[in-house]
């Protein structure tokens, strides 16, 4: 009831100033949806006369709607490709907002700690490493009792930014993966079962002894699923944590357009299967809208970032934040 009243009050306040922008519409990625909806909610408290609507229809849909100019901003877990940018005549600003990570979740009786490196993970998902007691795995995990058991691979069946990040990583660490499978929001999986969403993958992993799949970090943490530590580029085994994900972002050279992959990043504490997620904004907006968007993005960098860790997202590293702040000022 209170919210309805607030909304009515907001509508009443907004009504007289017809020239003021009262709503912004956005659509896109589902992966950052929890933190985005938190932000839009909190921002609405700061600016009661502005309502930001966000439809989490998926990154693909977000890019499509952004291209067709049916929304004020888009959102995507993967940067737009050169081909896609050409379709909007280059008129897009990628604004990185937060970071997320994928973890290899596994279900193996009596094993709680598992260490993997990139080639081994690629081997498992290619089907070339088919047993848990494969020499490559045994060598990496001297303490663990790895059984003589077939590995059941579980992957996402729905197209997803999580899959993009994961296959992007595998493409970087394995030539064979890059040529045979490649990276994308949905790929031609050589082996395994498909589960729908994080919950589908984790459900299959939990139910199937000897299985391994990948889920978002926050999902694995909330559901207490065992996940492996990954060997990063510096040769150190790192278990995914929010600081480790931010460290991955700090370890890359940021290009001007922010379209960067931070999988397999340098830095000794960097977690290698991490990714940015982006808002897609037009560099030139309709009368009045640019100011509103700019204001929101400023707030997102200043106040919004602090809300991310509680929801399982890693905030931007300081250097990136400073760089984005400058870019935001160029939006018209």
């Amino acid at each position, binding site marked *: 009831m209170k919210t309805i009243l607030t909304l009515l009050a907001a509508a009443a306040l907004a009504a007289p100033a017809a020239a003021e922008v009262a709503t912004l519409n956005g659509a896109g990625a*589902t992966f950052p949806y929890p933190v985005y909806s938190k932000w839009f909610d909190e921002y609405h408290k700061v600016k009661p006369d502005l309502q930001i609507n966000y439809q989490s*229809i*998926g*990154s*693909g*849909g977000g*890019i*499509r709607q952004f291209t067709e100019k049916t929304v004020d901003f888009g959102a995507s877990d*993967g940067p737009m*490709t050169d081909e*896609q940018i050409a379709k909007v005549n280059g008129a897009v600003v990628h604004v990185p907002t937060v970071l997320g990570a994928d973890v290899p979740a596994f279900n193996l009786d009596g094993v709680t700690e598992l260490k993997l490196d990139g080639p081994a993970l690629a081997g498992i998902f290619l089907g070339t490493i088919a047993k848990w007691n494969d020499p490559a795995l045994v060598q990496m995990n001297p303490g663990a009792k790895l059984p003589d058991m*077939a590995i*059941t691979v579980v992957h996402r*069946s*729905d*197209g*997803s*930014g999580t899959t993009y990040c994961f296959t992007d990583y595998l493409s970087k660490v394995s030539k064979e993966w890059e040529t045979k*499978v*490649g*990276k*994308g*929001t*949905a*790929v*031609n*999986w050589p082996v*395994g*079962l*498909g*589960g*729908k969403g994080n919950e*589908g993958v984790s*459900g*299959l992993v939990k*139910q*199937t002894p000897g299985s391994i799949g990948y889920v978002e970090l926050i999902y694995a943490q909330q559901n207490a699923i065992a996940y492996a530590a990954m060997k990063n580029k510096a040769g150190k085994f790192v278990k995914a944590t929010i600081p480790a994900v931010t460290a991955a972002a700090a370890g890359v050279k940021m290009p001007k357009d922010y379209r960067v992959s931070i999988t397999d990043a340098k830095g000794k504490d960097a977690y290698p299967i991490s990714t940015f997620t982006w808002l897609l904004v037009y560099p030139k907006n309709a009368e009045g809208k640019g100011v509103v968007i700019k204001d929101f993005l400023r707030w997102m960098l200043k106040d919004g970032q602090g809300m991310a860790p509680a929801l399982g997202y890693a905030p931007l590293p300081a250097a990136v934040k400073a760089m984005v702040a400058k870019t935001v000022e160029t939006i018209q």
Partner: protein
Amino acid sequence: MSTAVAPVRTSPAERGGARVPGPRERAGDRAFRLVVSGFAGLILLGAAAMAWQLTRGSWRTWAAFGPKFLWTSTWDPVNDVFGALPFLYGTVVSSLIALLIAVPLGVGSAIFLAELAPPRVSNAVSFAIELLAAVPSVILGLMGVFLLVPAVRAVEPFLSRWLGFLPFFRGAPYGVGLLAAGLILAFMILPYIAAIAREVLLTVPRSLKEALYALGATRWEVVREVSLPYARSGILGAVFLSLGRALGETMAVTMVIGNTPKISASLFDPAYSMAAVIANELAEAAGDAHLSALIAIGLVLFGVTVVVNGLARLLIYRLERP
């Protein structure tokens, strides 16, 4: 995705065959006629628009792959190579498994309810069956994930031990796969078949049955000689209606089928269905070729249901005119 439900045999006169020329058509009558024929026309228009839109949206795929799209098995959104066969296979086979299980069960229980059960039992059970038919499929899917899949996983090793000489019952017991999908679909369409078949069996005229009883026929003979032949086309209608639902089912299937576009003889292996791949990949299909291929899958699914409907019509037509 509706399928023809055959009416029980009636003569043209009963159906009100030709329009009875009443008193002169008044303005109101004419308006009424126009309005309702407009409604009927809208349905046709809707179907045509659907076919047109699907064809247009998938044009890129047909131009790139031609009819080969239907019988190739690679589904690679990274390199934009698409083939629909594994999905076609998964949809058709899971639906056939469902029919194989649900038709005998459904028709059997309908015979019990219509012919043998005391009216109170019959009504109570029929009510429960109709309730089952109204359960949303995502609920059935949840049940599938938490109950059916573990059960199938537990049963599969036994099946392969005793029936492993058949290629259908081999392989690793994942639980998810064609078998689980077929079972969940069977569970989903069973109430449809049972409820409609019961209704149809109840329309069999008493006089016919009593005549046969008078000749000294047993219950089984009455069911076999009178009830089933009389209700045949209605029951077939129920079966095809259910098949239509099974072919198009999305949620429950995608939750238990394993979502792997591979064709394998074993029912234990994970598979994929047409509706499931569309639901899974549409939201994140960023590339135009990928999107077009998914719409092409939609067109194929549309085509399959049209063919099934056509066959149903043909079959019922044949049965009605021996």
